[in-house]
């Protein structure tokens, strides 16, 4: 009974990851992360995702703060976007990375309206990737639990 449940969950997981690739939410870098997980490091992907989310939320808060200042400190802004772009790229959060590129561009052009729009995209893309990754993690944990019961 359990191995049918496990197979079903694995299919669900595979479909979720595939849909994220198809939508551009994730790119091939995420595969690289999964490849680095093995029995000696069974929680690697989850740990990276967790670090990423904490970091991204911290940065998004800062970006929001800096963007709402009277005199926007564009160099601080750029520094934070650079960090978020880097970590998005490292985990394979493709659309989020692109949103960061857009904010960097808008910031370089000192275009406040574009910055606001680009920042909203960042927030949106972050919540999309976070919620899907959270589902993925839950599936993963469920699979591992069932496998351990075997």
């Amino acid at each position, binding site marked *: 009974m359990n191995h049918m449940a496990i197979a079903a969950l694995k299919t669900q997981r595979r479909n979720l990851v595939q849909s994220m690739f198809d939508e551009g939410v994730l790119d091939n870098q995420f595969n690289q992360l999964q490849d680095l997980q093995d029995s000696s490091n069974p929680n690697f992907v989850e740990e990276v995702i967790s670090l990423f989310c904490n970091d991204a939320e911290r940065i998004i808060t800062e970006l929001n703060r800096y963007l709402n200042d009277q005199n926007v400190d564009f160099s601080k802004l750029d520094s934070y976007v650079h960090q978020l772009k*880097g970590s998005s790229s*490292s985990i394979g959060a493709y659309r989020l990375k692109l949103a960061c590129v857009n904010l960097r561009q808008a910031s370089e052009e000192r275009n406040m309206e574009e910055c606001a729009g680009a920042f909203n995209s960042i927030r949106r893309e972050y919540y999309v990737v976070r919620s899907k990754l959270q589902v993925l993690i839950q599936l993963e944990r469920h699979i591992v639990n069932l496998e351990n019961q075997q």
Partner: protein
Amino acid sequence: MAVDKTQFHVLAVDDSLIDRKLIERLLKTSSFQVTVVDSGSKALEFLGLNYEDDDHNDNEHEQRDSNSDEDEDHQDLGVNLIITDYCMPGMTGYDLLKRIKESSCFRDIPVVIMSSENIPSRINRCLEDGAEEFLLKPVQLSDVNKLRPHLMKARSNSKDFDSH
């Protein structure tokens, strides 16, 4: 002499927490012994090279050498390669590269630079100033596999290749 089986020790430097975790996993997966630090100054500290010291003057260095155990630390730590991010606050990866290459103790340690930005002038400058390789982020397992030849070469070049 089982050189292949000997573990190489890599010192990784990156200010990003996520990238530190990644590079550590990549290096360990490739069977390297790894030390990870979050800044250039911590890297120099780890090597035992005080980043405020000016060791350009060879005479000065020889004098200090007899009093310090920098050499012994260098051998004990056995850092065989330094891999560093380029963009870091304070000391950049390039600054770190220069400090390493200017150090009489550590100039022979191969240094690899990583960057998320593909800027040819940056890449060329790093390579011209002594970096062995310049890797574009996100770094892949295949990139890490490219490091081994540099380590093997450095080991066979060093005078103390019997010390391990």
